[in-house]
């Protein structure tokens, strides 16, 4: 097997990319090793393959995607997470599964991830602040994890929590958000084939500032739905309140579907600034797509719903 770093020229070929651990380390050395956070996470990324259904040509550069982050647990500015997230210990890491399901318990991240088939998917990521990136994620379907948990028929929602530990997460000493960060999905949204539990990006394990060791990616929703550094998963019969909804319910809802027709009360969502690989000083706004361009996969989930009410 020959490793091919398909991202160097911001192109992703349709050639399958198989990696093993040793080659991953090489990739790190050849590529942008200096940018990788010195995390102690020991997870071995199993073999995975690029999913050809989700190939997009122009990727955001790895440097931009790993140094321009909203992760208030490490500070409010977008450069803070890359600077401060070194204090996060991602090994050992335990994920607690609880609530309305059969397979409850505490699971070691490494053991848990081994249960599932990893794949690479390139998704658009649209932030509620009206900028966007294109990122190659590595992960497994949340649907597979849900099946693994064996939810009871009463379970209608899935709920996630980020780690709460102000010693490791200095931003939690402030009160910008009622900690820990919380997110949730309707169970049918969780079962959608796009919804990805993510453990890596750009062919490597997730850097801490991007939500190591385990985060959620829901590409048709605004980025804040993609909860990072998950320690708890819970099955519920009632809709949970996610963090941004709790902070400002008139501005952020539970659904948070990307929707150019429903503006944020204070700014327009019709357009976005795409952060690409190159120097983007002269990149004017582009049009935002309904469901971030993933309508074919997800529009049916919201049939008959008034999306200006359920924003």
């Amino acid at each position: 097997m020959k490793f091919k770093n398909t991202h160097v020229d911001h192109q992703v070929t349709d050639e399958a990319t198989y990696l093993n651990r040793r080659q991953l380390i090489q990739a790190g050395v050849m590529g942008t090793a200096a940018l990788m956070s010195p995390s102690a996470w020991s997870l071995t990324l199993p073999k995975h393959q690029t999913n050809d259904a989700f190939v997009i040509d122009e990727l955001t550069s790895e440097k931009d995607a790993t140094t321009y982050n909203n992760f208030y647990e490490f500070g409010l500015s977008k450069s803070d997470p890359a600077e401060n997230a070194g204090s996060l210990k991602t090994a050992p890491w335990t994920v607690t599964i609880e609530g309305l399901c059969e397979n409850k318990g505490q699971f070691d991240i490494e053991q848990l991830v081994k249960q599932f088939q990893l794949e690479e998917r390139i998704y658009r990521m649209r932030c509620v602040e009206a900028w966007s990136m294109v990122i190659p994620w590595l992960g497994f379907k949340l649907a597979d994890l849900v099946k693994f948990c064996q939810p009871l028929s009463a379970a209608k929602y899935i709920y996630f929590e980020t780690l709460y530990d102000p010693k490791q997460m200095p931003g939690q000493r402030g009160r910008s958000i009622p900690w820990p960060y919380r997110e949730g999905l309707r169970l049918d949204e969780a079962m959608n084939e796009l919804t990805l539990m993510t453990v890596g990006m750009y062919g490597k394990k997730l850097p801490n500032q991007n939500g190591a060791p385990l985060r959620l990616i829901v590409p048709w929703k605004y980025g804040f739905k993609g909860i990072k550094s998950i320690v708890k998963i819970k099955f519920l019969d009632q809709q949970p309140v996610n963090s941004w909804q709790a902070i400002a319910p008139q501005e952020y809802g539970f659904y948070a579907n990307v929707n150019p027709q429903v503006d944020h009360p204070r700014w327009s969502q019709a357009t976005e600034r795409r952060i690409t690989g190159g120097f983007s000083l002269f990149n004017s706004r582009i049009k935002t797509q309904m469901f971030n361009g993933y309508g074919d996969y997800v529009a049916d989930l919201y049939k008959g719903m008034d999306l200006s009410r359920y924003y």
Partner: protein
Amino acid sequence: MKHITSLKVAVFTACMLPLGWMVYDGFQHNLTADPIEELLHRTGIWTLRILLVTLAMTPLKILTGSALFIRIRRMLGLFTFFYASLHMVIYVWLDLGLDWGHFLEDVIERPYITVGMLAWLLMLPMAITSNKRMIRKLGKAWKRLHQTIYLVIGLGCLHFLWLVKSDLTEPLIYTGIGLTLLLIRIIHYVHGRRKTRVAENRHPQT
């Protein structure tokens, strides 16, 4: 005279530094992943900062008695307008790509953009009349016109408060400084009127 010239050169240089810094960071590719947003933020924040420094000149004159502060006030005011205009150009040209339909929609529908736009428009006549000829020509009206600056600082702070996503600390600090500067003037004005009245009572006319 030499004194005031070197002071003016120093102020001019200081006011050019934020721009120089932006240009330097631009060439170093050091304007974050979203350079347009970064430049919008930096030009906006420097507009507010220099505006607050401009507004501090009269209180400083009151407190120290030195007229030097008044001599550099015009240059500071013009630099405020300069950074506000850069802010506008970056927004309309780089961010919106000269999409005037989008621009109009923003100005009408986004309150923070409406007040920001209004603040810039209110600065325009002040910038135009900031020369000796206009001061002489307009007389008392000039002073009244230039008092619009209080409205501009209010709108500027509101613009900042309305666009912040969650943490209001920074815009509240700027608002607090603005209010303090305004308070010093009000106290001085009220105090001055009382003195005048007392003086008038002591030496009644006729």
